[in-house]
């Protein structure tokens, strides 16, 4: 088995190639997800479109108040970026704990999102931070998709043939917002999490929850946002009983699968435990 390899110099050329070959083409960023899927025979594309010459996909920078990461930024670049560390320290910390340093040197922000593996670390953290993916289509088309709405099923995004992810924009957080990412790793620290929870919470001057975002990985066919948990928190004082009761609501929001990292029932239990722990870290 083999494929035709293309290496366009611009995003426009890349989107035309991807559209021209329809579902028979895949985009290649850092190659980590591609390699894992290809080596196990899970994908057999006829055409591979390498993006590495597309300079506009590189770089991490501030655009106004928002943090921009190009699709080709590696996880290690995010982890070490001064802009990320100073504006979104929880994001830098979440990226620093992805798999191993070898993977972080290779895997990219855009490739990770396009992979749409629900057990990956970046999506829940990006969802909790209200991040937006910028998507390029053929003929200069551009559209913004909240990361929360990028995923439609296991290993499946809402991207159409001919579309690719340019990068993600993370809006500034309101002063006083605290964010964290916790993951349940019963085997080893470099494993995929059984479940993971990202949360961002801000208290008002009165000590009540003014805003809350809670997102989970590994708990459904796609990364999910736990809206019932968020609603239970808003306007309330974050006493231990409230956090426990709010976290319990995640039980009906998750849709876990039986897998090697736990049964569906176990993951449901662990989703409530780790949601509570994430919230306790933020307001304790």
């Amino acid at each position, binding site marked *: 088995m083999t494929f035709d390899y293309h290496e366009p110099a611009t995003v426009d050329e890349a989107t035309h190639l991807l559209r021209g070959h329809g579902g028979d083409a895949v985009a*290649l960023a850092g190659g980590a997800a591609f390699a894992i899927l290809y080596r196990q025979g899970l994908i057999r594309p006829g055409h591979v479109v*390498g993006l590495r010459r597309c300079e506009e996909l590189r770089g991490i920078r501030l655009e106004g108040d928002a943090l921009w990461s190009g699709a080709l930024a590696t996880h290690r670049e995010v982890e070490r970026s001064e802009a990320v560390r100073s504006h979104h320290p929880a994001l830098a910390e979440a990226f620093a704990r992805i798999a191993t340093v070898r993977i972080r040197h*290779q895997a990219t922000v855009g490739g990770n999102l396009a992979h749409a593996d629900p057990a990956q670390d970046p999506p829940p953290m990006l969802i909790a931070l209200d991040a937006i993916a910028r998507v390029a289509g053929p003929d200069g088309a551009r559209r913004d998709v909240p990361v929360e709405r990028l995923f439609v099923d296991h290993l499946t995004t809402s991207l159409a043939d001919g579309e690719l992810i340019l990068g993600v924009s993370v809006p500034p957080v309101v002063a006083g917002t605290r964010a964290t990412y916790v993951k349940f790793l019963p085997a080893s620290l470099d494993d995929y999490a059984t479940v993971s929870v990202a949360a961002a919470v801000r208290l008002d001057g009165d000590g009540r929850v003014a805003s809350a975002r809670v997102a989970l990985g590994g708990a459904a066919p796609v990364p999910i946002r736990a809206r019932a948990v968020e609603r239970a928190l808003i306007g309330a004082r974050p006493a231990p009983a409230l956090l426990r009761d709010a976290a319990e609501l995640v039980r009906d929001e998750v849709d876990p699968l039986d897998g090697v990292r736990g049964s569906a029932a176990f993951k449901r239990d662990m989703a409530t435990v780790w949601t509570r722990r994430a919230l306790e870290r933020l307001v304790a």
Partner: protein
Amino acid sequence: MRTRPIRVTVNGVAIERDVPVERFLIDLLRDDLDLTGTKESCGIGVCGACSVIVDGALVSSCLMPVVLVDGAVIETIEGLASGDALSPLQDAFIARGGFQCGICTPGQIVAASALLRENPRASRADVDGWMMGNLCRCTGYEGITNAILAVSRGSS
């Protein structure tokens, strides 16, 4: 079979080869260049046996599509010694018993080299974090960690 000319510098030597596009860096190293110090074990980027350095960054060569290394500077275990003189890390692995069967050792030493290049004063915690994905089924890791700390300037 569709091939592509790949130009790389491997351990200081410039090389050009026509390589089938669906291959991975480890195939180029082991099969085409006969650099068999780099080992393949899990084949999906988990175990670290195939660790190499590409443009200064430690990666798994089994996960690296060969088309992505065109133009890159690659360092493998074969490039660490100078003639018969082993690198300080290689000496330390011998002196501290940092291996038994040896299959993971090239990856361990390449990974540790990358760590100490980035962080010459790596602490035990730094070593544990960086080396986490380089699996060894013999040593229990103590000898490996001690060998790396013996070379790290931050440990004494």
